[in-house]
C-alpha cells in the first residue's frame, strides 16, 4: 500500500478524476481555508492542518480525529483556495477511506438504516401525513417509501456496493446488528 496521498488519488480519482485529488500536492499551507471555515470558528477543525496531515501521511491520526466529521461540506475553502486545492472533495475522500475502516459513528450509520428501510434519510410518519393533507397534498408522496418494488431497487444498490456490510446492517431486523429491540 502506498501513502495516504496515493490512496486518496486512487480512490477519489475514480469518481472525480485523478487531477482533482492531485491538487492536494499544490497546498502551500497559507491557511486561507482555515480563515474562512465556518466550522473552524466553532470547532477544533483546522482545514489547513487537515491538508498537512494528509500530505504527511498521518493516516491513523487523521482517521481518528473527531473534527474530520465537523466539516459541513460548505465549499468555502474549495472556492477560495489560491492554489486551486479541491479541499472539500479531498475531505470527503478522506472520510470515505476512514468509514471503510470502521470510523463511522452510530448516528451516521443510522442515516443509512433509514434509507435502506424506507428509501429516505428522513421518512414520513402519520403526523407528517396530516401536515400534507392540511396543505391539500396526497397524504403520502409517490416516492420509494410508498412503492415497495421501487424501494427494492434502492436496496439492491446498497447490497451491491456493500454499504450494508460497511455499516453492519442486519437485513433480518432491518437495523444495525445488535440494535434491534428485543
Amino acid at each position: 500500500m502506498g501513502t495516504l496521498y496515493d490512496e486518496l488519488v486512487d480512490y477519489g480519482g475514480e469518481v472525480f478524476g485523478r487531477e482533482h485529488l492531485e491538487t492536494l500536492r499544490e497546498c502551500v499551507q497559507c491557511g486561507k481555508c482555515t480563515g474562512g471555515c465556518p466550522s473552524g470558528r466553532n470547532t477544533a477543525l483546522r482545514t489547513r492542518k487537515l491538508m498537512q496531515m494528509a500530505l504527511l501521511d498521518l493516516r491513523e491520526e487523521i482517521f481518528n480525529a473527531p473534527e474530520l466529521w465537523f466539516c459541513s461540506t460548505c465549499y468555502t475553502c474549495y472556492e477560495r483556495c489560491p492554489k486551486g486545492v479541491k479541499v472539500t472533495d479531498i475531505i470527503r475522500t478522506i472520510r470515505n477511506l476512514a468509514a471503510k475502516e470502521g470510523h463511522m459513528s452510530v448516528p451516521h450509520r443510522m442515516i443509512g438504516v433509514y434509507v435502506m428501510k424506507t428509501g429516505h434519510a428522513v421518512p414520513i410518519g402519520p403526523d407528517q401525513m396530516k401536515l400534507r393533507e392540511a396543505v391539500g397534498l396526497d397524504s403520502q408522496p409517490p416516492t420509494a417509501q410508498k412503492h415497495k418494488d421501487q424501494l427494492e431497487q434502492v436496496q439492491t444498490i446498497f447490497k451491491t456496493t456493500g454499504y450494508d456490510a460497511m455499516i453492519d446492517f442486519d437485513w433480518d431486523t432491518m437495523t444495525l446488528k445488535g440494535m434491534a429491540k428485543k
Partner: protein
Amino acid sequence: MAKEAEAETREYAYFLGCITPNRYPGIEAATKRILKEFGIGTQEMIGASCCPAPGVFGSFDMHTWLPVAARNLAIAEEMDLEIVVTCNGCYGSLQEADHLLRENTKLREKTNAILGKFGREFKGTTKVNHSIVVLHDVIGLERLKEAVTKPMTDVNVAVHYGCHFLKPREVRGHGSSETPYILEDLMQVTGAKTPEYKDKLMCCGAGGGNRTADSVQSLEWMRQKLVSAIEAGCDCMVHPCAFCHLQLDRGQTEMEQAFGVFFNFPILFTTQFLGLAMGLSEKELGLDAQTTTMPEKLLK
C-alpha cells in the same frame, strides 16, 4: 394566438427528496401552486428516493451515493423531462452526479452495471434545475412582479443561499459565490429590502453530517447566523433549501433546549414568501404548521 407571455407550457419532473414532502410539505404545496400559476406543470417522479444527501453519503461511500443519485436521474430521463428541486442537498447531489457521469465514461459504465440489475440506465438526457432559477429565469422577474398583490415594502429579508446552490461554482454555474443576486432579485420583486448582514454567506451548519455528528455545535453556527441577521434589522430569513429549513426552523426549538433562548425568527422557503406576496394564506403555504411563527407584517 395566445398572448406571447403565455408562450409554451412547460413541465418538469419534481424531485421531492425527503425533507420537502416528509417534513415541510408547505414548501411542496407553495412551489407547485406558484409554478402552476405561471403555466408550469410539475409531474411526480414515481419511486424516487433520497437524493441521497451529498455531504452524508458522499462522505461515507461515494460509490453508493452515485448509483442512488443516478437511479433518480434515470427516472426523470424515462419521463423525458428536466428536473426541478426545492432543496440544495438534492440540487447538489443530483447535479453533481449528472455532471460526473456525463464526463466519465468508465464511471458511467460502472454505475449502469448496477442500475441494469433492475432495468434502468443513466443516459445523461435530463437537466437538474433549482426551483428558484426557474422562478428567476423561466418565469422572469417582470411576470412575478405583476402577480404581487400584497407588496412587502416594509419588510427586511435576510437572504440565506445555503451552500450547495452556489458552490462549487464550476458545477453550479450561477456566477460568483460571494456576490450572488438571484434571491435578492426575487425578494425585490415583492418590494422587500434585503439588507447585507455579517454572516449572510455562512452555512446553516447542518450539512456534511455535521448536524448528526454534534447537534449542539451545529446549532451554534446557526445561532451566530441568526443573531447577525437580527442585528441587521431583518424581519425574517428566506432561503432556497428544505434542509436549511429543517435546521433553521426546527433547529430553533433545539436551540431553546440547548441554549435556553427561543428566537422565534421567521424562516420561509422562497416560494412560501412569494406565495404570501401573491395573496396566498399562511395555511395554504404550511407556514402555520412550523416552529417559527409569522409576524403580522408578513401576513397583513
